[in-house]
């Protein structure tokens, strides 16, 4: 199991579009993925779960990844937060 603390950097928060990108990315990996925020824990592969976090800009959360491809998954997910959920340049 790997964990990492991240901060939502994009100004409008983790709204519908970034949430969708996050879930899509997470779903490509075999590992389980959870997000912990202010005592809540949601399945990071669940779009409705992630949306209900309604995380705003500056929100801090812990990403928890557990499974065979956890290293790669965590790296990709952290990158998404760092790039403010913009698609990676080709």
């Amino acid at each position, binding site marked *: 199991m790997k964990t990492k603390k991240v901060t939502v950097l994009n100004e*409008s928060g983790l709204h*519908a579009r970034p949430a969708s990108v996050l879930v899509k990315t997470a779903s490509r990996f075999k590992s389980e993925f959870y997000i912990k925020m202010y005592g809540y824990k*949601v*399945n990071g592969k*669940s*779009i*409705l*779960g992630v949306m209900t976090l*309604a995380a705003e800009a500056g929100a801090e959360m812990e990403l928890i990844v557990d499974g065979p491809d956890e290293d790669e998954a965590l790296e990709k997910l952290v990158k998404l937060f760092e790039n403010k959920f913009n698609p990676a340049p080709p």
Partner: protein
Amino acid sequence: MKEQQPKILSGKPAAPGIGVGNAFILRDDNKPVHPEKISDQEIEENIRKFENACEFLVQEYEKIKTIPDDYDVVEIIDAQIQALNDPEVMSTIKRKIKEENFSADYAIFSTFNDYIQLLESAGAQWAKDRTIDVVSIRDELIQATKEKKKEFDVKKGEIVFAEDIPPTVMVKLSRIKISGIVMERGGLTSHAVILSQSLGIPCVINAHWDRFQLQDGNDVIIDGSTGQVILRPSWKQKQEYLKRREEQFSRFQKALEWARKPNKTSCGSEFTLRANVEFLEELPRLKTHGARGVGLLRTETILFESNEFDVWDQVEFYSNMVEAVEGHTVTIRLFDAGGDKLLENSETEANPFLGWRGVRMLLDKKEFLKKQLEAIYRVSGKFTGKVRILIPMVSSMEEIHEVKRHCIDVCNSLSRQHVPVDSETPIGIMVEVPSIALMAEHVAKHVDFFSLGTNDLTQYTLAVDRGNEKISHLFDSYHPSIWKLIKMSKDAADKEGIPVAICGEMASKPEAAACLLGLGINDLSMNTGSIPVVKSVLCSNTLDEMKKLADRVLHADELEHIHELLEEWRPA
């Protein structure tokens, strides 16, 4: 039986265009879902029903995804599919069926409701906005478990009346090529509205009718540009609207081809066309229609919707706007409530249009003004030179000085907190009250630009309430006095070297736009849909011809004569 008279419903314009057809009332016959327990033997059947419903709905969404060639629509549908594939939701529903012996429809209903509640209570507005979509997935899933699909017998060309329309129904309706949609509910940002805009179906929302006024099959006219819906129109009304629809359609087809061409008259003189905008959702169209930035950003809605004047909500909204217009400017009109746009809880006034609105209200409610200015200046620091401030409903010099004082205060206070601001952010005024147009010469010395609001300028100059149907024939922006006031404002601005733009409906009329260009006003802002047609006319004539037109219009002393002059410029 008594013959029913024509009846006009006034709603909110949501998607432009004219539709003429028969009414089809889409009745919502979903029964309420009750917590129903099932026996152990029925579990398997209920699981199967639920899985089939999911599969069916995903397929439906995939199918409709291929129809509109529009990124927004695809994104909306993708989001719905993603929710239908949500592992957490799916397993919760199955668990409720298997372990708690709930029927499939109640398991779906209660599971989604938990999320809906959380989203509704979320602090962020976007999360609240999403609840409509989640509700529609919930209801469509429940509908699909009933295994008898709701078939519409909506026919081509009909105008659909409904309380609200979920996205899947919406796309099915568009396949039938309906002529219009009238909804009781629905926000301008709801999927049904975004879809109808991108699918080109005229749409009016927030229209209310009682059950006795309207029957299936009634003749109906819908004007999605004005928000008017005419039930049982007279023959004459119908002919008039049919003609207008024809004109609009052929004009628009031709005009879209112009959108990509450079903004130059046929003799090479440049002009700028911008969009009047209220919602982020309108922005994708700016590019396809050839708009260069936002000439008028209305801010009332965001402020009405959020109930409170949150600085950060505004910062986000304005930033998104500036980012979306890709290097062009956004002119933000300060909160212009009052008149026909009332704040909740405000007292009704005898003459609201002559009352407490625009800058008058802002200077009374300084906390509104200060928060809005703070938001704008914060954005200005991030996008230097890209935002402009527009003060509405100014009628005296004192008001200008006072707002400017607040601008300086806000700027200074932000600078003290080391927040970057663009203290050179242009501050302009709406010229929409005759008093200001008459003293434009003085005013021009103290502001950075003029933006002419021709609708209000017309109603105030002509003493015609534009909402009053009895005298609506008197409301005419082509009145000689209006041209004179425009010319005065332009001359005054030229003297001080400040720019003038038009953001009233006038700019969206090609013949008036040509005349305005002839007057030397080459910055026109209008609803996005009008840009191509206006552009086609401006591009295919010379500035000289337009100057001649303007000259003749300025010398005309009768309204009818002006109409004759302009008529020749109206595109066929």
